[in-house]
C-alpha cells in the first residue's frame, strides 16, 4: 500500500517535471494574479495593506484551481486511470497520492513564494509569518476539496469550468479563515481560534476527501 502511494506520487511528479511548464505556470499565474489587483485598484498603501492578505489568498485559491482539472482528466482520457484502478491497490491510497502530488505542484510553491508577494503589499513581518502558516495549513485543504470536484467531473465536457463551480463553495470557509487570520492579526487580535478551525478542516478533509474522490472516480469509470 505504501509502495503504491509512493509510485503514484513519483509518477505524478515525473509527469509534472516532464512538462516543466506546469511548475512554472502555477507559480507565475499566482504572481500575476496577485499583481493584477494593485493594478486594478490603485497604489494607495493603506488600501493595499488592507486587501493584501485577501488578494494573496484568493490568488492561491485560483492557482490551485487552475491545474486541478488535469489531475484526473488526462489520465481518464488516455485510459491510464482505469489501468491505475486495475492495479489492484486500494483506490483511496492511489488518489491520495495524486492529491498530494497536486499539492506539491500547486500548493507548496505558493506557500514558499507568498511572503515575497506579501512584501509587495507592505505587510509587516509578523503578518507574513501568519500568512505563510495559514497557507501551509490551508492549501492542502484546497487540494483535497478541489480533487473531489475534479473527480466528479471526469470526462464531462466543460468539466474544468464545472468543477470550479462545484469546488468554490467548499473553498469559501478555508478562504475566510485563512485570510481572516492574517487580517485579525493585523488588527492585533488573537488568531488561535482561526488556526484551530483551519487545522480541524485539514483533519476533516484528509479523512473524508480520499473516500469521496475514490467513489467519484469509480463512478466515472463505470
Amino acid at each position, binding site marked *: 500500500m505504501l509502495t503504491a502511494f509512493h509510485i503514484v506520487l513519483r509518477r505524478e511528479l515525473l509527469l509534472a517535471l*516532464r512538462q516543466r511548464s506546469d511548475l512554472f505556470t502555477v507559480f507565475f499565474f499566482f504572481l500575476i494574479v496577485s499583481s493584477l489587483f494593485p493594478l486594478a485598484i490603485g497604489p494607495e498603501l493603506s488600501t493595499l495593506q488592507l486587501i493584501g492578505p485577501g488578494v494573496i489568498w484568493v490568488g492561491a485559491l485560483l492557482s490551485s484551481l487552475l491545474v486541478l482539472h488535469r489531475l484526473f482528466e488526462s489520465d481518464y482520457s488516455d*485510459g491510464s486511470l482505469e489501468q491505475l484502478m486495475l492495479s*489492484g491497490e486500494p483506490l483511496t491510497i492511489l488518489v491520495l497520492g495524486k492529491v498530494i502530488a497536486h499539492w506539491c505542484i500547486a500548493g507548496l510553491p505558493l506557500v514558499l513564494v507568498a511572503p515575497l508577494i506579501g512584501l509587495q503589499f507592505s505587510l509587516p513581518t509578523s503578518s507574513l509569518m501568519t500568512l505563510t502558516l495559514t497557507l501551509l495549513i490551508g492549501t492542502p485543504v484546497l487540494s483535497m476539496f478541489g480533487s473531489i470536484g475534479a473527480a466528479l467531473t471526469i470526462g464531462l465536457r466543460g468539466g474544468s469550468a464545472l468543477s470550479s463551480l462545484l469546488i468554490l463553495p467548499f473553498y469559501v470557509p478555508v478562504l475566510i479563515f485563512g485570510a481572516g487570520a492574517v487580517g485579525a492579526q493585523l488588527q492585533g487580535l488573537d488568531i488561535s481560534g482561526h488556526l484551530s478551525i483551519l487545522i480541524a478542516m485539514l483533519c476533516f478533509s484528509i479523512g473524508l476527501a480520499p473516500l469521496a474522490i475514490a467513489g467519484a472516480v469509480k463512478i466515472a469509470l463505470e
Partner: protein
Amino acid sequence: MLLEVRQLAFCRGGIPVFSPVDFVLNAGESIRVVGPNGSGKTSLLRLLSGLSRPDGGTILWQQKSVSKSLLDFYKNIVFLGHDLGLKQQLTAWENLQLSLSMWGAIASKSSVSAVLERLDLVGLINRPVMKMSAGQKRRVSLARLELLSHRQLWILDEPFTSLDSGTVEYLIGLLRKHTESGGLLIFTTHQDVDSISSVKTLELGVTC
C-alpha cells in the same frame, strides 16, 4: 472452472445491451467475443474486468464472486481497452517501468529491453510516446502484456488495431503461449485471425 459467468446482463438507459451471457472458462482456454459494431463487446469486456457493474447475474473467479473481492480479482487480470493507458509525454521505458511497478511486477531494464527488442521498439525506448506513430504506440502498450504474463486472465479489446502484419503474428504467438501455459484469454477483433487455436466464440447480437 477458473472463470464462470452466469446470466450476466447489462443495461444502458434501461435497455439491455445484449441477451444474458453464460460461459465457463478453464485454464488454457480462450474465448473470442464476436458481433457486429455496437453489439456490446466492449461493454461485456469492461464488465468482465470489473470496471463496470452488471445489472444482473454474477461473475465467479475461482468460485468466488468478483464483485465481493474486486481488488483481489484485479490482481489476476490484464485489461487492454480501446484506450492505451500510456502517458503521451513519458518515454516508452518510463511508461512501462511505472505501470509495471504499479502492478507489482519487477521491471528490470534487461527484461524490458528483451521485450521491446521483439516488438522492434529498441530505438524508440527513450522517445516520448507522443512522438510515435499509431502502431508504435499500440506496441508499447502491448509490451506490458508479455511483461505481465504471470497474471492469469487477459482481456483484450481489439488488440490488433493499427498493427502491421509482422506484429500481428508476434501477438498471436504471444497469445498462444499464454494459453498453452495455462492462462485464460478473452478478446474481440473484427479482423480474421483464425490462427489462434482452441478458441471458443461467444456471439453477441440479439438483445432480448
